[in-house]
């Protein structure tokens, strides 16, 4: 019963968040310079044609009316229409979300496994070679800007070595570089968290007590200490899922990956009003939903947490 109440309240908060995002997104695309209609129509369009188009797109209405029309539409499940691409926004997002999700799943899987294994190895060998290496690696990994990394990788693996395609979405080879760029920063962060968690937990009394019951080191590392060490990691990974599903505008644009991020970059460039608004709204929705799911999941992982 308590959990139902909690979820209902959180959904209430989510609604408020999304409302805020919708206002900001709506305002931003209108503040941005450039007339969407002029960008949409051919250069030699006449004044009348422009006016007719503005009328058709509802841009002549007062701003508030435009906003409420848009919100009313969204509440009915219609995310709007892209005049530029001549498709409904829902349809566009559905296509792109699939591509972004593909990348997100791959990224999540490799970065999580890599980070946790590295973190455990570093945590149980604190101060030794593997620990020093992993901490240096994560320092570099967190400091490098994904944009720079993406360009350097293209230079090395595509231009110099010719191993990987520079862009495209056909075949698994195309996913390697975007996935590495998207996941590296998160992977090294999770590795650090796991390492610290592991090292802290191993010095706890209850680990000595577990060992005093005859449990082997391997069993302690893989089960009795790991569960404690991974608690903070769950939060970080969960929070990242939302971001990954929202897509990375920069990385997807560099590698021409036909996902949400690339669509957003295009939409902004073309002042595709409703598409930008709805993309931002959907991204915000996925991030809040992921956060909510993590918080609920957390109560199952850590029995001390109670939802109130």
């Amino acid at each position, binding site marked *: 019963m308590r959990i139902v109440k909690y979820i209902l309240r959180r959904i209430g908060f989510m609604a408020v968040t999304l409302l805020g995002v919708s206002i900001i997104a709506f305002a931003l695309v209108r503040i941005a310079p450039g007339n969407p209609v002029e960008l949409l129509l051919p250069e030699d369009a006449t004044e009348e044609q422009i006016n007719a188009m503005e009328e058709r797109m509802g841009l002549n209405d007062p701003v508030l009316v435009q906003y409420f029309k848009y919100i009313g539409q969204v509440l009915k499940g219609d995310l709007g229409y892209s005049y530029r691409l001549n498709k409904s926004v829902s349809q566009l997002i559905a296509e792109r979300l699939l591509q972004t999700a593909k990348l997100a799943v791959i990224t999540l899987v490799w970065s999580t496994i890599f980070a946790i294994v590295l973190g455990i190895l570093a945590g149980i060998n604190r*101060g030794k070679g593997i620990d020093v290496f992993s901490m240096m690696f994560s320092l570099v990994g967190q400091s490098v800007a994904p944009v720079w990394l993406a360009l350097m990788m293209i230079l090395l693996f595509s231009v110099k070595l010719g191993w990987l395609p520079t862009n495209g979405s056909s075949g698994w080879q195309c996913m390697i570089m975007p996935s590495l760029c998207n996941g590296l920063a998160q992977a090294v962060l999770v590795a650090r968290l796991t390492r610290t968690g592991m090292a802290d937990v191993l*010095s*706890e*009394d*209850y*680990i*000595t*007590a*577990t*060992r*005093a*019951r*005859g*449990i*082997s*080191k391997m069993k302690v590392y893989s089960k*009795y200490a790991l*569960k*404690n060490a991974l*608690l903070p990691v769950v939060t970080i990974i969960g929070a990242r899922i939302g971001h990954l599903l929202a897509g990375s505008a920069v990385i997807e644009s560099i590698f021409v990956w036909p996902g949400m991020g690339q669509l957003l970059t295009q939409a902004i460039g073309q002042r595709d009003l409703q598409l930008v608004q709805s993309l931002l709204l959907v991204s915000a929705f996925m991030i809040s939903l992921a956060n909510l799911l993590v918080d609920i999941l957390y109560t199952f*992982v*850590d*029995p*001390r947490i109670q939802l109130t």
Partner: protein
Amino acid sequence: MEELIKIKDLFVEYRVGGVVSNALNGLNLTINKGEALGLVGESGAGKTTTALSILQLLPQDVGFITNGDITYHGESVLTKTDKEMGDIRGAKISMVFQNPLTSLNPVFTVGEQIEMVLHRHNPKLNKNELKKRAGDLLEMVGIARYRLADYPHQFSGGMRQRVGIAAALACTPELLIADEPTTALDVTIQAQILELMKKLQHEISTSLVMITHNLGIISELCEKVAVMYAGQVIEYGTVKEVFTKTAHWYTYGLLNAMPKLSGERERLVSIPGSVVNSENLPSGCKFHPRCAHCTERCKTETPPLVNMSETHQVACWEARKA
């Protein structure tokens, strides 16, 4: 009497960041089968280090045995592999920890934590049998069986210590080491826990090492007592002899520092000075800087343990005559 554990001339060091602490400095101690031994001394005397050394659980890369030997049934534990020690820990020798609030894993149910030790040493038991045995153990320490599914944070301190005791006794060990099991508990709960330990020790006839700085607990529970100072045993014998014919001035000081319930009210006597700094030990008798009966010899030569009687030994050049 059969010897269970024999500790011979044991030296243990803790090395942290270039600093070396000499936790044990030539400890000699014998634990006999079926016997209850009290281990007393101030904080930092090396009591817990002794316990962890027996189990070979000194903190990794920090605690090192530099000299001496510990034998269990005549076999050295220092040469055993971790797997072989694992078969002993929890099954033959088990331990109850000082702080029940930190010695249970917060993210596993108490049932899982009791079943873990049962399963480790009886791998053939199936899930239901494990659960039944764990439930029996909980009832043995006075907790209702249905609470197996609860997590440690749902228990009070005293109850958590009962869980710790249940887990320690799960495989009916030959030796139970209780490291100040009541220090973190309030007085009424202390009495309950001690009562429980006394009862269970007799029921499953295990040997007991009771680590404490509470001399009352020693006289209540133990037959023998070893007094530790600066990582050495400085007086050892039957509780009766050590408490009535006290020979070492440190033990004498400890006993005098106890408030008396009868007679006129007096100012409490304390031992002057403070516990030795284990990073910089004094030469000779480690207690000499605090001792009122110190001689030149005490400052340079370390006194060996000598017999006062068959069952009473002391390490002091100027032993007190009772």
